């Protein structure tokens, strides 16, 4: 059981999906356990692959397999196993297993008086395992086509899962919006891939990178392809212009958000850019563009998270903001820092979503933070988990995200201009602020009377929380060289000559700790005592507040574009098609023929004389013609 069997990991998911989708009705409780078995099996198979990988020495292993060939293009469906893949495999299989176990508990809600599974639980778990399988294929894919296939499949699964409760109109619209926005991004990705394929003649990632690196592909084409591919990444990872779908995606069940909109799918964009980083190294302007988009998204996400009252939407904005951080670091060429933060953020954010889920589960789907308060008395485990997650993501010292945020800070300050560094720090403070706001509003402060009966979630739901909490606390230490041939995440991720090991720059670390803890403390203090100041702050900055509440009016703008421009264009083209091309063109031709017919008929007067004249003149004309020719 080594690297060669790595393809098994995604296959469990596909098989589970096939079996449940087709024979779900006949399986006990619609086959949800089968999906659990599949994902746990994937997690279990991951470990021998890891050990085999480590034992063989960290490097890039390529297991090629031909899928189909048409004309002179042959497309493979092989695998690449390299540190990035391993890290992603670990994250996806771990989080997916925990989320699926959590879903067992979460998807049981009081249905007509008694606690029972959701009527379509089978479909839920089927799409869940399809999603995990697709995500794992995406991570393992060695060629851009297989990656694009998995990319679309992941988008499709998020469409189904967001729109899972399709009785609700809002869920249907949210899922449609999500799929179309990501689809727009995917068009860019496809065009980017096609440009690269047209230039290099192959889909294989390593060949393409090799061709780009030693200059077979022209500068202009590489930059264009890089831009286009980043467009796809923006769609999937909800970066600035294409981020509008993420907050609405919260319509789906919370475990879905935990898995898809925190740990896996949204990180696919970051993964893609990381996988193709050498191409971006060659395209300077593209990389700068990524950095700019990253920082803009980060700030935007942070500011929106500050004002939103819905707990899940706040977490969505926080994800957006952290994805912005990762993109910024990739823009700065910080491959290891970004991958590391991706891991850490995945773990902590998934836990936050799961705890939000257990809160909602306990307070029958209430998500408005103002209605919560002082829940720590009633829900100690969830409370503790949420606080650890919040602290870690704000970058408080020993916890997971602190290490990665530190790494990112180092990567940014040594490659990008100070402006980025300052903005990065501002964003760090803001994220600490909104995390503290959320933690305080939900768990601390007085317990409201109506929340009296709230009780802790069942073991099935709280156990994953505990696992993730433990991870959030200790995961950070993998950055340090822990011996046994393992010299820290830096060396592991960036094998080969230019890997950098974890050096400890005291100055920046102190700055980040001070800012993070200061931000968090200030937040707690502000919301604890000075509730009034918060209100009049809101009043004074009324304008700013309204803008933020309306998500910078982006959604309304997009909706306006869709209604006014796209649909109007459709209607006008359809009208043009029916009136001009059809009535004028086709029927028109018919009518002209009829018209000619009518005119001809007018010559048939019925008068004998006219006919005689016509005949006579005919004879004369012919005779004249013959005569003239003969003369």
């Amino acid at each position, binding site marked *: 059981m080594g690297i060669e069997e790595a393809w098994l990991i995604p296959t469990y998911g596909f098989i589970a999906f096939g079996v449940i989708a087709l024979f779900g009705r006949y399986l006990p409780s619609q086959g949800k356990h089968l999906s659990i078995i599949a994902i746990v099996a994937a997690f279990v198979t991951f470990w021998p692959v890891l050990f085999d990988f480590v034992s063989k020495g960290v490097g890039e292993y390529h297991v090629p397999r031909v899928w189909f060939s048409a004309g002179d293009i042959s497309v493979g469906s092989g695998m690449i196993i390299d540190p990035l893949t391993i890290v992603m495999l670990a994250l996806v299989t771990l989080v997916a297993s925990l989320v699926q176990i959590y879903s067992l508990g979460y998807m049981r809600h009081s249905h007509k008086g008694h606690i029972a599974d959701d009527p379509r639980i089978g479909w839920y778990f089927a799409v869940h395992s399809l999603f995990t399988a697709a995500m794992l294929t995406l991570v393992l894919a060695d060629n851009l086509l297989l990656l694009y296939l998995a990319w679309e499949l992941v988008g499709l699964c998020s469409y189904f899962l967001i729109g899972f409760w399709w009785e609700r109109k809002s869920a249907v619209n949210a899922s449609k919006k999500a799929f179309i926005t990501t689809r727009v991004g995917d068009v860019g990705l496809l065009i980017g891939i096609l440009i690269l394929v047209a230039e290099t003649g192959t889909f294989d990632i390593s060949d393409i990178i090799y061709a780009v690196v030693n200059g077979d592909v022209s500068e202009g084409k590489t930059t264009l392809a890089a831009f286009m591919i980043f467009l796809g990444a923006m769609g999937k990872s909800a970066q600035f212009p294409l981020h509008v779908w993420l907050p609405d995606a919260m319509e789906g069940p919370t475990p879905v958000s935990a898995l898809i909109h925190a740990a896996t799918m949204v990180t696919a964009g970051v993964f893609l850019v990381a996988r193709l980083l050498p191409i971006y190294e060659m395209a300077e302007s593209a990389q700068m563009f990524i950095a700019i988009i990253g920082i803009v998204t980060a700030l935007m996400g942070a500011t929106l998270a500050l004002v939103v009252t819905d707990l899940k939407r706040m977490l969505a904005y926080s994800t957006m903001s952290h994805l912005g951080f990762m993109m910024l670091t990739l823009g700065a060429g910080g491959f290891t820092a970004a991958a590391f933060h991706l891991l850490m953020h995945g773990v902590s954010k998934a836990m936050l979503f799961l705890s939000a889920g257990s809160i909602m589960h306990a307070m029958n789907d209430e998500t408005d933070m103002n209605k919560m308060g002082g829940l720590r008395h009633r829900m100690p485990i969830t409370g503790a988990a949420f606080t650890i997650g919040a602290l870690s993501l704000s970058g408080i010292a020993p916890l997971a995200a602190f290490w990665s945020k530190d790494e990112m800070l180092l990567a940014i300050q040594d490659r990008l201009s100070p402006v980025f560094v300052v903005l990065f720090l501002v964003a760090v403070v803001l994220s600490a602020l909104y995390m503290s706001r959320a933690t305080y509003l939900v768990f601390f402060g007085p317990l409201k009377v109506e929340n009296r009966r709230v009780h802790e979630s069942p073991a099935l739901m709280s156990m994953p929380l505990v696992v993730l909490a433990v991870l959030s606390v200790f995961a950070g230490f993998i950055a340090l060289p822990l011996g046994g041939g393992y010299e820290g995440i830096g060396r592991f991720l960036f094998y080969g000559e230019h890997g950098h090991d974890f050096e400890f720059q005291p100055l920046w670390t102190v700055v980040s700790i001070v800012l993070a803890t200061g931000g968090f403390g200030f937040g707690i203090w502000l919301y604890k005592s000075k509730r009034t100041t918060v209100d009049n702050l809101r009043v004074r900055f009324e304008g700013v507040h309204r803008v933020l509440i309306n998500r910078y009016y982006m959604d309304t703008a997009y909706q306006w574009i869709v209604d006014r421009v796209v649909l109007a264009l459709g209607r006008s083209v359809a009208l043009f098609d029916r009136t001009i091309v059809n009535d004028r063109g086709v029927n028109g031709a018919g009518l002209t023929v009829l018209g000619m017919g009518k005119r001809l008929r007018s010559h048939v007067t019925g008068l004998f*004389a*006219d006919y005689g004249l016509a005949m*006579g003149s005919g*004879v*004369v004309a012919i005779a004249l013609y013959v*005569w003239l020719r003969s003369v």
Partner: protein
Amino acid sequence: MGLILFYILGGLTLVAALGVVTTRNIVYGALFLLVAMSGVAGLFVLLFAEFLALVQLLIYGGAIIIVILFALMLTRTTDFSVATEHRRWPMAAVISLALFGLLAGAAIGDSGDYNTYQRSGISIEELGKGLFENWAVPFEIASIVLLVALIGAIVIGRSGEEEGGEGDQG
């Protein structure tokens, strides 16, 4: 000598024909037609086709003109003198003249090897033999044509009474 006769008879026929075509009163037209027919008969005699001249006079002069007069009398077109030509007559005149010019031109230009005008008529029994030997079939057909025309005329003519003037089939 033949030439003078030809001019006399030809002129007579042409004048009569002109009369038929231009007279205001239809009855005069019929009479002019009679004169024209006799002129033509004369020409036949000039061309040694005596039997033909006889037949011409007999049928045209005797039968056809009379029938036309009957028709004129029955359709009472005589009591009002109808304007002769309809409004597009100049066009007809032009066409006729053009045709005449062409035909005459063809006739003059025709340099066929025709032998000169000489007195050699054919006797009636030669004509009869020719008619009944190598033209027998057309002769029979002609008789059938006459028979059909006869019956047709009777049927059309007779069935007209009982219908009366019912609606006009537009």
